[in-house]
């Protein structure tokens, strides 16, 4: 084990694969030409992009012509939503879920102001959507159903197949945000025929930041979000981010080659971490479904302590994680995902997300278990609730809810 910080925040971004970095290096030197240029230098750059397209298409098992390279998932999600609505202009209803990423949910909420009717599907205690609710809400007026493949905070996997079938029965277009699924689950778009649009982002699977891809099914409606050039077959104007695209292609290639091995490794390390923490710390609960879950993610609620305090103390110990409740733009915002799951607020406060990658080493996990349990113990020693005899100071109703939640663990 090296003395680099232990990075357990791999749903936020990932370590760039050495192979991806290596593939990019010549672009800083002699291979700097514009891929749109006709000369042979330009054509070499074009070739590098098309090679990346093949690798990304193989990752999704789709055609290269169905891939549109862009700046990342936020752009991909925006583009897919506007394209779908443009394709079915008579329809004025959009269905999404309460646990989507902000680059989906905020766009759709904005469209409510433009006159669209919005349905945000609820999730159960385990973070799962209910397909019956989707059946009840969908109608011939529904233009778009947008559901994430797997959640970024809990790793919970949605029944994409079933949701897609329902969307198709009503002639609605179906968009899937697969940012967290890419590299961790098998994405087969020849199998998942109901999916019209699918979003991925290179840096979430060991590529570089600033490049992503939108899958647009052949014959699905399309509307460019950015105009002003013939790039990407007229679907996305602007000189290509060749660095990001080539890195993403190289990263996709590694997954195409060894995905099962990577998944097995991630699952082993994640399970080791989760089991280690359950063994070493009392009073913890796993947030979300543990069966239908990404192989790399576990979201853990620690009783009696504050997630931000845990995060900052782990940071001082060189462990990088994210908390379930983040302080954003001026106000306390408990995680909208955990709130949608009806996790008691008292448990959200102490919730932290741990996500490994295929580069996470077993020694790192063991060191992390050691340090995390030490910090949890320390924070509980500080806490007036960290001792059995003080627990009755809690409000009775909250205490009951709280106890029930943590009893699951």
């Amino acid at each position: 084990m090296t003395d680099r910080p232990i990075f357990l925040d791999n749903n936020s971004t990932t370590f760039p694969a050495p192979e991806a970095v290596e593939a990019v290096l010549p672009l800083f030197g002699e291979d700097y030409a514009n891929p749109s240029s006709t000369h042979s230098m330009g054509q070499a750059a074009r070739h590098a992009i098309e090679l990346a397209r093949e690798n990304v298409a193989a990752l999704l098992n789709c055609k290269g012509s169905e891939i549109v390279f862009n700046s990342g998932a936020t752009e991909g999600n925006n583009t897919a939503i506007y394209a779908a609505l443009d394709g079915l202009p008579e329809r004025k209803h959009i269905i999404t879920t309460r646990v989507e990423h902000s680059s989906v949910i905020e766009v759709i909420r904005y469209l409510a102001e433009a006159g669209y009717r919005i349905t945000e599907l609820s999730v159960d205690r385990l973070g799962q959507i209910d397909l019956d609710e989707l059946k009840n809400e969908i109608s011939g007026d529904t233009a778009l159903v947008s559901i994430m493949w797997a959640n970024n905070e809990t790793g919970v996997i949605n029944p994409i197949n079933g949701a897609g079938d329902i969307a198709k029965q009503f002639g609605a277009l179906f968009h899937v945000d697969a940012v967290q699924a890419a590299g961790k689950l098998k994405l087969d778009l020849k199998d998942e025929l109901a999916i019209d649009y699918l979003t991925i982002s290179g840096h979430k699977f060991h590529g570089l930041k600033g490049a992503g891809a939108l899958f647009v099914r052949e014959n699905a409606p399309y509307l460019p979000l950015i105009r002003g050039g013939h790039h990407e077959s007229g679907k996305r104007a602007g000189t290509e981010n060749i660095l990001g695209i080539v890195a993403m292609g190289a990263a996709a290639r590694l997954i195409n080659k060894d995905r099962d091995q990577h998944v097995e490794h991630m699952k082993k390390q994640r399970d080791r971490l989760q089991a280690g923490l359950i063994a070493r710390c009392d009073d913890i609960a796993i947030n979300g479904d543990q069966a239908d879950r990404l192989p790399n993610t576990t979201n853990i609620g620690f009783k009696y302590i504050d997630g931000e305090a845990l995060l900052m103390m782990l940071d001082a110990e060189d462990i990088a994680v994210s908390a379930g409740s983040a302080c954003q733009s001026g106000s306390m915002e408990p995680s909208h995902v955990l709130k949608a799951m009806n996790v008691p607020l008292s448990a959200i406060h102490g919730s932290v997300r741990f996500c490994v990658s295929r580069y996470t080493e077993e020694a790192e996990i063991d060191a992390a278990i050691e340090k995390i349990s030490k910090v949890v113990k320390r924070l509980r020693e500080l806490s007036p609730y960290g001792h059995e005899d003080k627990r009755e100071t809690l409000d009775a109703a909250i205490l009951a809810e709280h106890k029930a939640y943590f009893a699951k663990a």
Partner: protein
Amino acid sequence: MLTYSQKVKDHFINPRNVGVLADATVVGEVGSMSAGQALKLYLKLNADEVIDNAGFQVFGSPGAIAASSALTEMLKGKHVDEAARITIKDISEYLGGLPEEKMHTCAMSMEALEVAYARYRGIELEVEGDEEEELNICRCFSVPESKIERAIRDNNLTSVEEITHFTKAGGGCTSCHPDLKQILQRVRAELPENKPKREPVNAGAGNLSNLEKMKAIQDVLDREVRPGLAMDGGDMELVDVVGNKVYVQLHGHCNSCASSSSTMKFFVEDRLREMVDPEITVIDTTEHSDQLHAPPMR
């Protein structure tokens, strides 16, 4: 994530005076699990009522841990009456400043101190009796109305956002924001009579010449109003003063939003009445655009 000062980080990573004082003279306890933060403060007083030792237990964010640690350090060696005068601002300053969003952590430390002091002196705290019965305005963080009212009065709060920063109320689902707005308006309307807390700019305000008055008004705007507006990309210009009528114009972001007008007028008037002349009326001469939002795409 928020950035904390070095001193906050130090008090968070190495908190001072942690733990129960078995021989404590008095204990102050505030907060709850549902509020997301709680503090138990232990004080040991000597025969001269000087705080010999202080200890604490805390549940909460890094700010809460640092503020509690800082408070115990500040308390040691102080006479209990002197200690009782410590304010939220004092604690924040001791820590080299806290992010505004985290002021509620200092507020909690101060409340624990108040509870301890009241208990020691045998004073009954206003809120203590009511709290059982009182409904929480903010259900996410269990914040009762009395606590919100007090925070507004004591810290001269002027917006819902500030209420959230100082009490956490409204920081969760946000469904109580309309209630918070109402409470804010009501409490602020009562403020000038009940609490002449700031020194008037000029004690003999009634006898000011028009020029002096204009200068005093400009002074209040510069100090109290414009810095806040500038943070939102806005500004306010003093157009003219005729008798007790103060004509102003809003610029930047402020003038595009008609709803800001009445709030601003109320706020500025309140300030000017308090500090310059109780008879002042503010007249907004800005031509407000009705367009609140840009037209939707497509």
